[in-house]
């Protein structure tokens, strides 16, 4: 029997339902509060990098600034433009907000995955469960499905506004998100190939200890490609052409105000957190502790926190990536539109496909007992031949464009 949660196997009593309900509420509240803190964190870190003070009035260190802003947004006038498509205009914020929340459900937020343990937790009354809202069969594919749905929110918001700049912003957004979803998926495939499972808890369980993070096979190329593609998927700087203020006023959400705007804003920051959590889950072991075993130095990553050990490790790793995203925003200038498309289609997708093929070839060589050096050599040569062909094709098409009088 399979289920989203080990609790749901067998007889279902009131206690099981209560545990599931508590988990839902906790994930919801933690999601909202962490988004609030993320907004504060981003503003504080950016102001530090720009030699400013940043929010410091509401609450200690300005922590409650986001809460104040949120309450202000609630009481603002809710405008619906005259030329808008009213139903779609009202629907769009939810299409962007709900997927952002749902991704939380598949992230393992804690639990003990060390050794042969699978992250299962036993609650009082012999209830076995995970510190994870749901562990569906399709696992990490749910992330791709939900980010596919999130495109609709932005796209329909721009279209339904019934004015030019939001429409331009949303057309950009949909083209960008659909293109980078391909790079996201192909770099993800490398992780799935090594983990041999789709389920997020299974992926975490396969990354036991520092040495099993697959640092060479997935930690370099697929990780970098995933990070770039995820940044583009989130529409965060340097890929925030969707809301390029200088060109598009405010992008897809220009006509939105009050609580509908707040929903878009919330979704954007929540997506940043969930994407960092997904990166940690896929590439850096999720709640696995960072155990060190070099020479005489030995540490199993135990922070003496008991059951909270995994959660604390998870939070520490996620914080690193949240900082990286803020850092990106503070340092990198925005890409031009054709640069964005070139990077996605001509660089990221071919590289991640080539790397995936190489990994698959090595996997097969290992199974069949072939000479690995030979397999690697043949793989590299064929990848180089493919790259040369691609480069030649691009050169020819660039020359044709020039001859036809294109300016770029």
């Amino acid at each position, binding site marked *: *029997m*399979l289920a989203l949660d080990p609790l749901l196997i067998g007889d279902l009593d009131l206690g099981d339902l209560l545990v599931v309900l508590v988990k839902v509420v906790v994930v919801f509240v933690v999601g909202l509060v962490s988004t609030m803190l993320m907004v504060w964190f981003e503003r504080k870190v950016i102001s530090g990098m720009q030699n400013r003070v940043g929010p410091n009035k509401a609450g200690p260190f300005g922590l409650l600034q986001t809460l104040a802003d949120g309450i202000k947004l609630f009481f603002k006038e809710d405008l619906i433009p005259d030329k808008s*498509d009213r139903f*779609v205009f009202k629907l769009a914020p939810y299409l962007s907000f709900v997927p952002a929340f749902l991704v939380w459900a598949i992230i393992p937020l804690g639990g003990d995955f060390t050794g042969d343990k699978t992250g299962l937790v036993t609650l009082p009354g012999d209830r076995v469960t995970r510190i994870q809202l749901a562990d*569906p*069969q*399709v*696992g990490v*594919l*749910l992330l*791709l*499905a939900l*980010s*596919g*749905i999130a*495109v*609709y929110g932005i*796209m*329909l918001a721009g*279209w339904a506004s019934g004015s030019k700049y939001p*429409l331009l912003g*949303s*057309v950009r957004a*949909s*083209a960008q998100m*659909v293109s980078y*979803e391909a790079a996201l998926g192909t770099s993800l495939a490398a992780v799935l190939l090594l983990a*041999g*499972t*789709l*389920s997020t808890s*299974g992926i975490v369980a396969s990354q036991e200890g520092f040495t099993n993070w697959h640092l060479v096979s997935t930690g370099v190329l697929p990780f970098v490609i995933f990070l770039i593609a995820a940044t583009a998927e989130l529409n965060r700087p340097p890929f925030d052409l969707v809301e390029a203020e200088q060109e598009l006023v405010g992008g897809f959400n220009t006509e939105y105000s009050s609580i509908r705007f707040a929903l878009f804003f919330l979704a954007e920051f929540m997506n940043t957190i969930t994407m960092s959590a997904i990166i940690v889950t896929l590439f850096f072991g999720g709640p696995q502790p960072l155990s060190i075993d070099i020479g005489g130095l030995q540490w199993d990553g135990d922070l003496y926190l008991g059951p909270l050990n995994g959660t604390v490790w998870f939070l520490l790793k996620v914080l690193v990536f949240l900082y990286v995203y803020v850092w990106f925003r503070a340092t990198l200038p925005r890409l031009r539109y054709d640069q964005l498309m070139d990077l996605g289609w001509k660089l990221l997708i071919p590289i991640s496909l080539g790397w995936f093929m190489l990994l698959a070839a090595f996997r097969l060589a290992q199974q069949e007992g072939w000479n690995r050096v030979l397999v690697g050599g043949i793989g590299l040569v064929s990848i180089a031949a493919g790259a040369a062909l691609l480069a030649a094709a691009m050169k*020819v098409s660039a*020359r*044709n464009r020039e*001859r*036809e009088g294109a300016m770029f």
Partner: protein
Amino acid sequence: MELFVFICAAAMVLVGAIGVVVRSHPVHAALSLVLTLFGVAVLFVAKEAHFLAAVQVIVYSGAIVVLFLFVIMLLGVDNVEDLRIEPITVQRPLATVVGIGTLALLVTAVVQAQDSVRTGSGTGIDEAIATGDPDSNVRQIARDLFGDHVFAFELVSVLLIVAVVGTVLLSRRPDKSLTSDGGRR
């Protein structure tokens, strides 16, 4: 429970399908199509075909309908069409004939296939429940696609590439100056 899920999903599919035909606005019609695709995904989940459901949402709702919407927005055809003007006069009777023909084909296929559907635990997509292995669903599809039907699969991918190359070739406007010295290259 299964009946309830089926009725809800079937209602979604039907409402979406009727919406695609009835709604006069192209964007609304495309959104109705999304509703239909979601309904089909729910039906897949109810039949324990989780992987198919995920792929349905990723590929059809996440990419194909987004591309439809993209084209509708980019070309600015998002205004109500005048149905009285008919550019090709035979297309409406022809569409009726093709529609009825497709329906007849589908009904025949379903009726014919009724006996060959494997039921019971451990066969077909029920293997995931029987073995308790959540990834068996993916493995089965992979073995079918890349093992039993690998030739057809590769043919389809060749067809798609030919279609893409053909479209690019047709959509490039012929340039007089280019064709005169294009042979030199």
